[in-house]
């Protein structure tokens, strides 16, 4: 038909009216409610009677703890972000890659703890533990890519995701079969117990080690990605894998390297996580994995600085959030809800700003 009648035009407008506003309204109402809950909760917590209130030192501890844990989460998040940037797939089993690295390090640290090597050569043994965990995690990551993901390279998007969920379950329970169901204590060199005073603030030594290691690792990674040829080809494949392959880049090789780098970072994170919490178990990959994924999404998935930033923000949120917001409402043991907090952040980010903080907000593409 050449001309649209008035009725049709009005119909189209009506359609728009019917569609748009109510979802907007829900979102606006939701954000106001959340904001109110957060502000009131924080206010209530901070104005509690002096004997119930957290002291300044406690808050400072929360912040440092949050930074250290956030840094670890950020390292794992880098693995998600790198793979997502290149394959546009969520490597759900990355948490299990991390878990295997922790077990790899555990067996060495356990043996060295008994032989006294851990305490006599703390620096050397920590370095070796890092290498072991990095190698183990890298091996698992490469194997995972080869066996589970490569045959599905051109599949519809949900297929690799379901595969990844299956692989995650499989790897976690493989570790259970291999190493047993009980969790095991992870030894820490005696030197790292206790605190150091830095700029007048008492900081756990382990947290210092964690932060320094993460800063070094992220610096090396960004140098690698921006300066080396391999890094350049990674970025090229992330931008457009088809064109990159036309330009002579071996896409499959780049993908394997990406998984390997993700594994290396997960291995570092695994050692840092294990010395922080002093235990390893076959279920340890799941929650940090989800938290790291949340961090990657929060920062803007596909962006390296975004993953690091997201990790630190999420770590702070996890350590301060429940105490600051929930205590005010008199909720008992608010730390139990720490993980619910993580997921809530994830859900809210995806609803309000799917592109993340540093990414472009293109919900339609995902």
């Amino acid at each position, binding site marked *: 038909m050449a001309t649209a009648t008035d009725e049709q035009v009005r119909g189209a407008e009506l359609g728009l009216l019917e*569609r748009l506003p109510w979802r907007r309204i*829900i*979102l606006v109402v*939701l954000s106001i409610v959340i904001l109110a809950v957060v502000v009131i909760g924080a206010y209530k917590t901070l104005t509690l009677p002096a004997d119930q209130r957290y002291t300044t030192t406690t808050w400072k501890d929360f912040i440092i703890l949050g930074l250290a844990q956030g840094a670890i989460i950020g390292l794992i998040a880098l693995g998600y972000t790198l793979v997502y940037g290149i394959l546009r*797939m*969520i490597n759900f089993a990355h948490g299990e890659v991390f878990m295997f690295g922790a077990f790899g390090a555990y*067996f060495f640290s356990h043996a060295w703890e008994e032989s006294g090597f851990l305490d006599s050569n703390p620096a050397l043994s920590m370095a070796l533990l890092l290498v072991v965990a990095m190698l183990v995690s890298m091996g698992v990551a490469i194997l995972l890519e080869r*066996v*589970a993901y*490569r*045959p*599905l*390279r*051109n*599949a*519809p*998007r*949900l*297929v*690799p*995701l*379901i*595969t990844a*969920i*299956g*692989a*995650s*379950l*499989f*790897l*976690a*329970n*493989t570790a259970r*079969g*291999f*190493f*047993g169901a009980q969790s095991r204590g992870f030894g820490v060199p005696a030197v790292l117990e206790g605190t150091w005073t830095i700029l007048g603030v008492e900081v756990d030594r382990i947290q210092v080690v964690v932060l320094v290691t993460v800063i070094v690792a992220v610096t090396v990674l960004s140098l690698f990605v921006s300066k080396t040829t391999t890094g350049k080809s990674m970025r090229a494949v992330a931008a457009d894998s088809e064109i990159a392959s036309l330009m002579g880049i071996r896409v*499959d090789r780049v993908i394997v390297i990406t998984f390997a780098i993700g594994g290396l970072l997960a291995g570092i994170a695994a050692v840092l996580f294990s010395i922080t919490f002093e235990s390893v178990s076959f279920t340890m990959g799941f929650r940090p994995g*989800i938290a790291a*994924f*949340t961090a990657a*999404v929060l920062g803007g998935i596909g962006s390296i600085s975004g993953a690091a930033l997201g990790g630190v923000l999420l770590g702070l949120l996890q350590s301060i959030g429940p105490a600051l917001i929930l205590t005010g409402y008199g*909720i*008992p*043991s*608010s730390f*139990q*809800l720490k*993980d*619910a907090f993580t*997921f*809530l952040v*994830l*859900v809210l980010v*995806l*609803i309000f700003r*799917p592109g993340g903080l540093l990414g472009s907000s293109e*919900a*339609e593409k*995902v």
Partner: protein
Amino acid sequence: MGGVPTRSIVRAGLIGGAIAVFVALVGLYTKFADLALVGEQITLGRLLIIAPALVAAYAVTRPRIVAGERRSVPFGPGVVVGVMTGLVGGALFAAAVAFADWFGVDRIREVFVAVTEQLIAFLTFDKGVPGGLPELIGFCVVGGAIGGFARTAPEAVRRPASAGVLAVILFGLLQRIIPIVFVQLGFEADWLYDRGAGLTWFGGLIVFVVAAAANALWNRDGGRTRERVRRNVEQAPAAKVGLFVAILAILTIVPLLLGTVISEVLGSVMIYVLLGLGLNIVVGYAGLLDLGYVAFFAFGAYTTGLLTGAFLNTTTGAATPALSADLNFYVAVWIVALLAAGVGLLIGAPVLRLRGDYLAIVTLGLGEIVSVMTASKWAQPLIGGPQGMRGVTKAEVFGLNFQDNPQHFYYLALAFVLLAAFVSWRLSTSRIGRAWNAMREDEQVADAMGVSTTKFKLLAFALGGAIGSMGGALFAVSIGSLTPASFEITVSITALAVVIIGGLGSIPGVLVGALVLIGLPGLLREFEEYRPLIYGGALVAIMILRPQGLIPNVRRSRELEEEEVSQDVWARDAKGEAEAVAAVLPGGSLGVEREDLE
């Protein structure tokens, strides 16, 4: 050798050996060493020794494409290739066993807890190292030969033979059901099964012969009879109705034949059928991957508890929940379903914009929030927190007791399953079903064609939520007490595995998926520990080898067949060269590869 490069044989053999070592380390051999399938000799453990070499040989003798032409491996060389594959795999496996023995079992066990003296004894047939190693290699060689045979023997031989072997294994695994059925029907079972063990040799032979003969009959004159029967059934509504009535009759009689213990297993199968049917609407019909389905399950269970007057567990005894009603179950369940549909809308509305993997992660997050909340102290006044609640109604009616009598409960669950299946079936063939179909295939095109994607997505969430909550309600009625441990992410993953392994969008598929994934492990308690391992492996394998599931949705598998050479076939290898079309066809094999051109 028969067109198979030596390099491929060695590689396949090594992979097979590595898989065998993996199976040993993960503890499967120790677990299944004594589970006899036929006689005392054929145990599931021994079958697992054969299996890796068999699979490797089966894979390596696949047809290859040489210079654009598809070439099958001939029969004789095929078996030889299989034997060589088994030899390589067996050598690796035996070397690993010898190494473990030399290095010291106790030292290895500090890392790999499954490595024990019993494991070594089992793998060396109680003859020790090195006495038993030739036998171990021999088993692997036999496995390889069977693998080569199963791929390359003439069709008229290998089809009946495979059917016979599979039937024997199935009958062996069902050793705790079939004898009971026989006795209930008034037959002797002693000739078929050893008491408290697997098939007798004679019984195994009979099962093999009957299954093989049935298969040969079914496939006679090159599969033409099979095709004709299939076409007739597809075209004649009466045949379909007959099939449905037959399945229904079996489902109705089964618990009477099997007694209470097995009925309990069947009851939990039915709960997962219900969950699968609900999730099938969301994932299979509408194509929205929901990883937080446990949220509805938990919602249904706890709300049923609250509405029917359950009380909270506390350290001092019992307490009344902050919100409570004392309704009849048959009133409460509809209220629960309605509320859950509302929750579905609430969850669905904000995530409408998200697609694919992001949607999956958001739903996962919401599901986890529900799990964490149920276990938190914060939720204690309402639903009992970590201690949970007890005293959920027994939902008695006509003197049937649904909590203490698993047989009765099965019928209650069956009624709900039939309802959900009917609703799913009517929806899938209706305008709504077609709208979901269009939306799943391409959302933008569907939108442009005038399908209101908002409306239909929300409808899918609401319906899926309602059915899932009914599953929760039934679960609450069946066990009477609720603790947070029952509402973890494993429920979501298991329901998803049921739907995917059965076949996305297929109602009979959900039934089969639940029977395989919940029923089989429920009958063999030995499986319990390895359930998640097997689910995970099965999800990966099915996505790679047979993405349409065990019982595919007819329409969808037709789509897959039609588009086998177009862009929708994803089973190509990474270079995009090989045309591994066979991998996605029903009954497809491991695929064709083109490695000879390198």
